[in-house]
Structures are given as structure tokens and as C-alpha cells.
């Protein structure tokens, strides 16, 4: 029997798994597809913790401030290449070249370093998919009126056949290439040329570069190259700041974060079961006895002492919505569903964002009458009710803190 089975391989599921496995627990993570982190930027938001912790029913009201901060520190311990101070915002660039704030971001993302530059060079890798250099330059110029913002193309040999074939190059592929010996060498030469040319100018230089992070501190692969992550290595070698932009999904940095979390989990003895769906659960007197997993050819039954529902809400299919309503798919847990679902202002408050499972302080699901619905199930991350990641900008915080708490309770 497993100590815990976690349903969902996004941020909260992986953090739950790692923190439990670190304490010697046998843990299985089941995920239907690739981690949802592949679709995220790699930067994490905690939002205005003080305010949200005083917003009725918000998940932060169940998690103490101390715990939320502990999960923040815990993540930084797992990933030394991340930067961020508790309670302070870090600037990062959006894929359009606008400034936004984040709570935790890879050091290479830190965009405040652009603010003192007299000259900003936006590197435009040839054929990079979903990358719009002229828009980025215009936006940066608007935000940095004192600087001269220009673009500089880079066209590595490696991708010449791609360009000939008319195939755009994904950020993930660029990042993976830069991280090879050949890529590192050509980047080194490229930056060397920039350094030389810019010396002629009196202006202080900063460089903006898209899709650089192929991997983070990763116990399985980092050991293979004594050097650290690529952006950190570059930064150590050049005299000007190199700022990586966040990107549209699927992103290199998000994928690097997901991969590193999975490797950490597996190195601790955890097992990942990917590409299958959890179709239901056998329940008996308020407890889950086992869950049903659809493997190829047959349904397998898996039992554990604890089950963690980290299945990601409506976006990831953990909550299914149709014209009759919303339903939690594995345990059939009661959901909080607002009376009216949508409002007219597209980017404004949308009540459906708060659909989810209401839980107690130990993350156990509650019935509408406040009683615990299932004793040995914990609910984390986007499956929790009463929060809106887009408006409150606390997606990373809720997922990390609830995952960290669940991992500790296993």
C-alpha cells in the first residue's frame, strides 16, 4: 500500500509528493498529461498575502501566514536559482515586453535590472515561435523612455534547415539547443561580440533574451555538467545583465521547472504514472478505499493511506463543467458553485473562477453543512474553492502552500 497517491502532476501535486517523499513516504503521482507547469511561465505569484489572508473563505485563511512563508522558503531551498524576497515583488517581463511583478522567479528573469540601462538590446532568435520583437521593443521603449531600445537578430546554424523548411522553432527547442555544448559555445561567441561592440558606446547595456532556460537545478542532469543553469553561467561571464523574458505556452522555463520537480521526486523514490486517467474511487463509510485508474486494457485499483486531489480544477479536467453544472470527477466531492457564473467584463471578476472544493484546516473536503466529506482525502491547489488566480495573482502561492501542507500531513 502506498503512503499517498496524488492525483495531478502540477505544482501542488509535485510539491506534495516531494515534501512527503523527503520524509521517507512512498508516494505515487498520477497525471493525465504533462505537468500544467509546462503551460506556466516559470515565475510564481503569491499575491497580496496579507490582504488575501483576510478575505473571507480564501484558501489563505486556512493556511497560516507562517506556513505560506515556509512554503516560499522551501521552494527557494529546492531551487537556489530562484530569486524573491518574502513580501516583496520581483519585476519580470511579459511575453509582450511589459513589466509585471512576480513573487518568485528564476534569477535570470529579474527585469528591474533593465531600469538603469541606457541601452537595451532585444535579441531576436530567427524563427522563434510566438515571439514578436517589434512589439516587445515598442513596449520596452515606452516603459524605459530614457533608454535606447533596439533589436538584434541571432540565427544559429543549427536551425537553418528549419527556416528553409518554413518550420517555426519552439522556445523549448531553442532553450535545449543553447544548453548543448555547441549552443553554449555559439552563445558565448555571440555575447563576446556584443560585449566588444558595445564597449564603443558610453551607454550602459542590458540584454533581453527569450527562451533560455532549458533546465533548473536538477539532481539527475545537473550533475552531468558541473556548471549551473545556462542563464546563471552566461551571467557569470558577461558584464551586462541578461534578462530572460517569460513566454507563451508551452514554455521552456515552465517545462524546465516541471522536469526538475519530477526528477527531485523520483530521486527521493517517488513514482510517476503519466498518461492515465483516474476514473473513480471506491468509498466506504467516509473513507476512500482505493481509486480506479484506467491503464491500457484494464482498470487498475490502487490503495493508499492518503489520497491527495491535486487535479487542477476546470482547466485540467479535475472539475467537469457542462450545461447541468459542475462536478468533481474522482471522488464526486461537493463543490462550491456560485449562483451566477459569469460577468460581462471579460478580464474582470468572473465568479466561475471560484468553483472548487471547500476544505477544513487539514485540507479535508467539506460538505455544505461543514462536516468532513471524506477523511483520508486532501484537496490542494486549483481544486480549492474561493480564489481567482487571474485577479488575485496568487496561483503559485496557493498551490505551493497547500501542497507543502498536504505533504507534511502525509
Amino acid at each position: 500500500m502506498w503512503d499517498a497517491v496524488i492525483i495531478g502532476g502540477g505544482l501542488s501535486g509535485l510539491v506534495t509528493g516531494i515534501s512527503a517523499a523527503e520524509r521517507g513516504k512512498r508516494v505515487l503521482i498520477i497525471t493525465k498529461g504533462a505537468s500544467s507547469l509546462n503551460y506556466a511561465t516559470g515565475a510564481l505569484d503569491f499575491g497580496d498575502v496579507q490582504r488575501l489572508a483576510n478575505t473571507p473563505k480564501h484558501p489563505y485563511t486556512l493556511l497560516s501566514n507562517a506556513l505560506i512563508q515556509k512554503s516560499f522558503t522551501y521552494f527557494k531551498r529546492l531551487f537556489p536559482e530562484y530569486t524573491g524576497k518574502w513580501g516583496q515583488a520581483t519585476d519580470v517581463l511579459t511575453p509582450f515586453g511589459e513589466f509585471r511583478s512576480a513573487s518568485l522567479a528564476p534569477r535570470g528573469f529579474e527585469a528591474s535590472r533593465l531600469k538603469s540601462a541606457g541601452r537595451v538590446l532585444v535579441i531576436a532568435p530567427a524563427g522563434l515561435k510566438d515571439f514578436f520583437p517589434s512589439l516587445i521593443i515598442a513596449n520596452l521603449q515606452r516603459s524605459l523612455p530614457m533608454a535606447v531600445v533596439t533589436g538584434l537578430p541571432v540565427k544559429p546554424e543549427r536551425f537553418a534547415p528549419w527556416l528553409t523548411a518554413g518550420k517555426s522553432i519552439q522556445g523549448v527547442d531553442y532553450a535545449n539547443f543553447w544548453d548543448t555544448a555547441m549552443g553554449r559555445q555559439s552563445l558565448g561567441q555571440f555575447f563576446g561580440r556584443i560585449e566588444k561592440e558595445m564597449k564603443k558606446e558610453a551607454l550602459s547595456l542590458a540584454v533581453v533574451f527569450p527562451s533560455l532556460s532549458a533546465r533548473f537545478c536538477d539532481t539527475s542532469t545537473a550533475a552531468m555538467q558541473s556548471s549551473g543553469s545556462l542563464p546563471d553561467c552566461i551571467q557569470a561571464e558577461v558584464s551586462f545583465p541578461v534578462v530572460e523574458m517569460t513566454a507563451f505556452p508551452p514554455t521552456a522555463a515552465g517545462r524546465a521547472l516541471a522536469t526538475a520537480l519530477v526528477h527531485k521526486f523520483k530521486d527521493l523514490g517517488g513514482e510517476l504514472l503519466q498518461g492515465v486517467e483516474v476514473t473513480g474511487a471506491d468509498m466506504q463509510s467516509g473513507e476512500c478505499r482505493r481509486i480506479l485508474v484506467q491503464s491500457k486494457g484494464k482498470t487498475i485499483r490502487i490503495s493508499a493511506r492518503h489520497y491527495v486531489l491535486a487535479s487542477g480544477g476546470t482547466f485540467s479536467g479535475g472539475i467537469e463543467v457542462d450545461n447541468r453544472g459542475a462536478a468533481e470527477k474522482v471522488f464526486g466531492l461537493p463543490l462550491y458553485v456560485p449562483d451566477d457564473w459569469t460577468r460581462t467584463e471579460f478580464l474582470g471578476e468572473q465568479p466561475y473562477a471560484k468553483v472548487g472544493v471547500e476544505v477544513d484546516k487539514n485540507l479535508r473536503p467539506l460538505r455544505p453543512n461543514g462536516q468532513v466529506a471524506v477523511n483520508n482525502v486532501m484537496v490542494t491547489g486549483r481544486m480549492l474553492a474561493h480564489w481567482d488566480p487571474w485577479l488575485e495573482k496568487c496561483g503559485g502561492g496557493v498551490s505551493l502552500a497547500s501542497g507543502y501542507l498536504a505533504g507534511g500531513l502525509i
Partner: protein
Amino acid sequence: MKNTREERAFNLDNCIKCGGCTAECPVAAVNPLFPGPKLAGPDAERFRLEGESLDSTWLDYCSNCKTCELTCPFGVRITDIIRRAKETKRGNGKAPLRDKVLGRVDYIGRLGTIWPGLTNSVLRLSLTRLALRKVLKFSSEAPFPAYQRRFVAGKERYTGLNRGKSGVKKRVVFFPGCFINYNDRTTGEAVVRVLEHNGFEVIIPKFRCCGVPREANGDFAGASGNARYNLALMQPYLAQGYPIITACPSCGLALKAEYPRLDVPAAKQVGAQTYDLFEFLWKLYRQGELHTGFAHVDLAVGYHAPCHLKAQGIGTPSVRLLSRVLGVKISELDAGCCGLSGSFGFKLEKYNLAMQIGSGLFARAKYGFETGEFTLVCSECGACRTQIEHGSGVTTLHPVHILAKAYGLT
């Protein structure tokens, strides 16, 4: 093989165009002429349904590793779409001679095992390599696995130790597959010994090739012919509830996911009654029915999870079980696809692609070997093992040998 309208509609409607599959596709990452699973699959499918075929060479580049399906967050069966399109494209057209040869692994195997020593010497001759390259468009560097004496040589089923012994009630059917039959008899013998050690009589009917190589090389009718033949042989055993055991992940995947699509009675049972060897042993272990008198085995191995084992949706049962053997230390390599994909990497125009796909895995295997992290690599798939040895020089073996050693059976 049938594909219902519902399956089609599901696959088309559930693709949200996120591009996650293309970001993970090992072939798209190295081949500028392959646009990736999203475009070759669900995107082009909408055109194909309207009678418009987009560039049909796309289809040939899909190696059917199924990474895209593990990645898809919405369960789209992308390789089903691609396979159907390949089938339609092939129609009554002639397959190249090379593909006809590669599809008949069983015929070549029977020829090759008549005098294995001679076959292996001849295959190593550069003249043979040149002829194979010129006439059949095989790569001169293709890592053909060596032939051994055949595993199931006689006309009768395998007569194991337990056969005829009084009191033996437990029986399993073993589907060895071509690799074990012609290239790896010692693994076949180890599988039988391990099962017999646990009190099973092992029945090995005279199966034909599972059909995967024929389908992979465009012979769809031939593949389904093989499947029907094998299902007819399985029928009486399936009816008595005997489990079918596979030790090759591709055979296993075919039995679990492809055979059930056929319109014969045995097809309804084969999916649920087929087990990967370690999936079966783990089930016994869970039920307290596995012999756990493991001797201490002092061995550090790297483990490569084959794509078609991942695609079965059973996790990594060999790692799970073998980590219970004292002294065995397993590092999961987790470095992607080996690139060979059965016979994909043997082909002249694909050899280099296959080597590039596998380069990360080879580097990881070499690194682990050279630093003393492990002395050999284990993996269930014979093709993966052949390619890993070819690309990294590290010795490989099927994980069953470690268990056989723990049982003192070697």
C-alpha cells in the same frame, strides 16, 4: 481495426491546440521536416476529412513512440489519428521492399537463427552492410541486434519445470515476442524460471509476431492477420482466465491496446488479461503471493523506461519491485526516448535522426557508467537496449535477470 466515429469526434474535439505534444515530441525536436504531432495529427486530420491531404511525408516521420499521448492534457489519441492516416495513404499502394523486410521480424528471425553465428558474422561484414544500404536502404551503421539460438525452438509449447507436476494449479501464458525468440533467449528463459519459481506453469503457444513491426512498416492487413492468429491461439487460455504475460513493452502494448479493437471474441478479454511481467509480479507481491526470499544482490543499475511501457499506463513496476531487493540501487535515467523505435532507426534516412533523439539518453548512460553511479543499464525493451548499447557502449539487460539473480536462479 475499427475506429468509431465517436473516437474520431473525441480526438478532434478534445485537441485544444496547446502545442504541448509538439514541445515534447522527440522527432519534431530534431527533424525540420516533421511539423510535430499536433499538425500531423489533429490539425491535418480536419483537412483529410475534407479529402485534402497535406504533405504526406509527415506521416512517415512519426516513430509511434506515443510521447504525444502521454503529454496531451486532454487524452487525445494522436497516434491513432496518424496511424489511420498512414493506413489510408498506403491503401493498395506498394510498400518499399525494405519496409516489407523490416515488417517481417519473425521471418528474418527464423532465417537468422538457423545458424546464428554465421548470420551475425555476415551481418557484420562491411560488404553486407554496403549491399543492405544500396539495395534495401538500410543505414550502414544500423545497430542490428545479434541472433542467438531460438528461444522456442520446437513445435510444441515450452515444457517447463512445473509441467505435469502434481498440484500445480497456477498457469500463465507467456507471449515472448520476436526479440526474445530470436535475439534474446536468455531473457525468455529467465522469465520462465522466475514464473516457475513462483509456482506457475508457463505455457508458450507457437505465437506469431505480435504485428507491431508490420504495422510500423505499413502492412496494416498483415498486422491484423497476425493479431487474429495469435488471438485464436490465446482463446482457450483466455476463456480459462489465464493471464498473458509479456516481457516486451511493444508486444504488451499491442495486446493491451490494439488487439481489443479486433472483431473476434478473444479480443474482449485480451486487454484485461495481459500483463507486463513486472506488472504481474507486482500484483502478486501486493497480494502476498510473490516469493520474497530475495538474496542480497550488490548491483547499481541505471533504468530506462521504454516509451511503450510508459504508454501502457502502469508506471514503472520493475523499479518498484527491484528496489525491494536488498543491495540493488536503481537510478532512473529519465532522459527521453532512445530513438530507435523498433526499426525506425535502422532506415538510411532516419538513422541520424534516431541517434540525435537518443543523444540525451546516451550521454546520461555514459555519464552514469563513467562516474561509477551504475555498472549497467536495464530496460524492458530489446530495441531500446540495442540502441543504448550502440549509442553509449554501456552494457544493458532486461530487469528480469536481476530478479532471477535475487532468487538464485542464475
